[in-house]
């Protein structure tokens, strides 16, 4: 079977190609659906090829673990609600990081055994030579990054899931974190230098996991998407490094591509929130000093009937949904309302802020779930020019992303964040549960603007009232 190794290599090559083409297709809404299928075929191919690898032991165990892991993840992935998508991505990403760390651990343990029992028997290498310093360094580096991604992602998951609702902050935290990282790196260097004692290996992994935990705990829920994206890139990198050690080209290419793509995606997300990555990781949100501007005026309420009439006879209506709408499960009713408006000849668009929802693009997913076609959805740059010619802007469940203070008040913690320029519309209707402040606890000047009217109530109930009122107009 001399053709077998070549055939397996060819499968890995095809898998790498399919991953890249799949990712490419995923970057356009028209072909995105096909993209994931292509990548999925690549994955199936790579896994099947690995099974055929000559000299592979424990095939039964591998199959058991494979089926268990696949089954559990498939089951949970099918059942999770669209609003909970970001934390599921964090969870699966953490698993990948954990797997990369496990590969590193298995290698290091094997190397340590090999050093004692069979001299020069690097059992993981295809060519059967002892592990070189480079190989050890990559194994250690991949294990470190993977372990940090693993524990960090689990914390991110727990936070978004609401299991950990407080930020964990103490004085001197940064110094302690840095110390933990320095210790982990020191043990890593020791490992690379050839001190493959079990205690050193265990200590190294414990410290790496601890660092991921401590690095993520102080970060607030609003910043979590950026952190998840960063850990996604981390896992990619860890996979690439372990791929180098195993000499597996598919892992090297897929891991590196994800590492680079994830890094860029992280930057794009951070930029959309007007924060630098360093600020997210080491700064603390909401602790900006300086007196916040006090806002004069009063919030002016409006009834659902009046609001519906106002929009029914408008020419252009822009709906600005926020995460609050998704929490209230109002997106289906809102889309029904929008459809009724469209039937009356009103031009309706949905405007989405880059960080609406829990993750950039999350709101698009939630609207898509309700059946809103993506060509009715406009992003910030596109829609901001249209607000002056918009008759009614309906803000539902969004707060900070439409707050004009981001442009006018340098003391505000969100100062400088690009916002949807809703206040420029002729009329603004804000659907809001009560008079309180938003997710970030910041007062919103929009609610006090002369052209703004407040429609109080639960998102879903209000949307239902609007639908009923609209139907009542012609009846």
């Amino acid at each position, binding site marked *: 079977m001399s053709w077998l190794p070549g055939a397996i290599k060819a499968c890995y090559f095809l898998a790498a190609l399919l991953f890249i083409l*799949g990712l490419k297709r995923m970057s356009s809404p*028209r072909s*995105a*659906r096909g*993209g*994931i299928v292509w*990548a*999925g075929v690549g*994955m199936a191919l790579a*896994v099947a090829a690995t099974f055929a690898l000559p000299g592979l032991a*424990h*095939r039964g*165990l*591998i199959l058991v*673990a494979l089926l268990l*892991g*696949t089954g*559990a*993840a*498939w089951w949970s*992935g*099918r059942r999770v609600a669209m609003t909970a*998508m*970001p934390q599921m*991505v964090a969870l*699966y990403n953490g*698993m*990948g990081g*954990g*797997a990369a760390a*496990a*590969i590193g651990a*298995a290698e290091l*343990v*094997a190397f340590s055994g090999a050093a004692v029992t069979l001299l020069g028997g690097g*059992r993981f290498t295809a060519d059967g030579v002892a592990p*070189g310093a480079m190989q050890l360094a990559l194994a250690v580096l991949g294990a470190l990054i993977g372990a940090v991604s693993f524990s960090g992602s689990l914390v991110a998951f727990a936070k978004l899931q609401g299991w950990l609702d407080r930020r964990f902050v103490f004085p001197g935290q940064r110094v302690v974190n840095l110390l933990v990282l320095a210790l982990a790196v020191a043990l890593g260097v020791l490992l690379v230098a050839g001190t493959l004692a079990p205690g050193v290996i265990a200590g190294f992994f414990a410290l790496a996991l601890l660092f991921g935990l401590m690095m993520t705990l102080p970060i607030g829920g609003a910043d979590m998407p950026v952190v998840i*994206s960063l850990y*996604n890139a981390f*896992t990619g990198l860890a996979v690439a490094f*372990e*791929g180098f050690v195993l000499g*597996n080209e598919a*892992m*090297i290419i897929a891991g*590196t591509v994800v590492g*680079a793509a*994830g890094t*860029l995606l992280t930057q794009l997300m951070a930029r959309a929130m007007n924060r630098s990555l360093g600020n997210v990781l080491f700064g603390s949100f909401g602790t900006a000093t300086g007196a916040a501007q006090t806002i004069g005026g009063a919030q002016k309420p409006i009834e659902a009937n009046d609001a519906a009439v106002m929009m029914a006879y408008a020419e252009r209506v822009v709906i600005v949904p926020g995460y609050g709408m998704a929490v209230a499960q109002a997106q289906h009713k809102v889309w029904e309302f929008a459809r009724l408006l*469209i*039937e009356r000849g009103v031009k309706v668009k949905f405007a989405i802020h880059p960080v609406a929802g829990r993750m950039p*693009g999350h709101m698009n*997913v939630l609207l898509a*779930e309700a059946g809103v*076609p*993506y*060509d*009715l*959805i406009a*992003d910030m740059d596109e829609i901001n020019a249209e607000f002056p010619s918009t008759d009614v802007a309906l803000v539902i469940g969004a707060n900070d992303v439409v707050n004009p203070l981001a442009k006018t008040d340098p003391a505000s913690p969100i100062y400088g964040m690009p916002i949807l320029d809703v206040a420029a519309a002729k009329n603004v209707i804000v659907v809001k549960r009560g008079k309180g402040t938003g997710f970030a606890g910041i007062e919103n000047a929009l609610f006090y603007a002369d052209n703004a009217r407040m429609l109080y109530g639960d998102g879903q109930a209000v949307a239902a009232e609007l639908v009923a009122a609209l139907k009542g107009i012609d009846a």
Partner: protein
Amino acid sequence: MLDGFLALYVFMLAAFTGYEIIARVPVILHTPLMSGSNFIHGIVLVGAMIALGHAQTPLEIGIGFVGVLLGAGNAAGGYVVTERMLEMFKSSRPGGPEQRR
């Protein structure tokens, strides 16, 4: 293991590929794309299979087993979640006459 410099070239080219693919992506696809790239690093499963397949001591077997379990979770979960998100994206243009006024 790949020859040192060849490995470095592969690393560099793959990094550029990843960067270029994402560079022109609309915001609406950020979440699915993150999820999709999350699926792709599920290839770690292959490495975990190799690690378990070459394990010799009970400890190595245990670590390898956990690795395959986690890797399979990454790959399967990433696929399901991404697929679910992407299947919802549709345009109003084909077969959406009510929007054509």
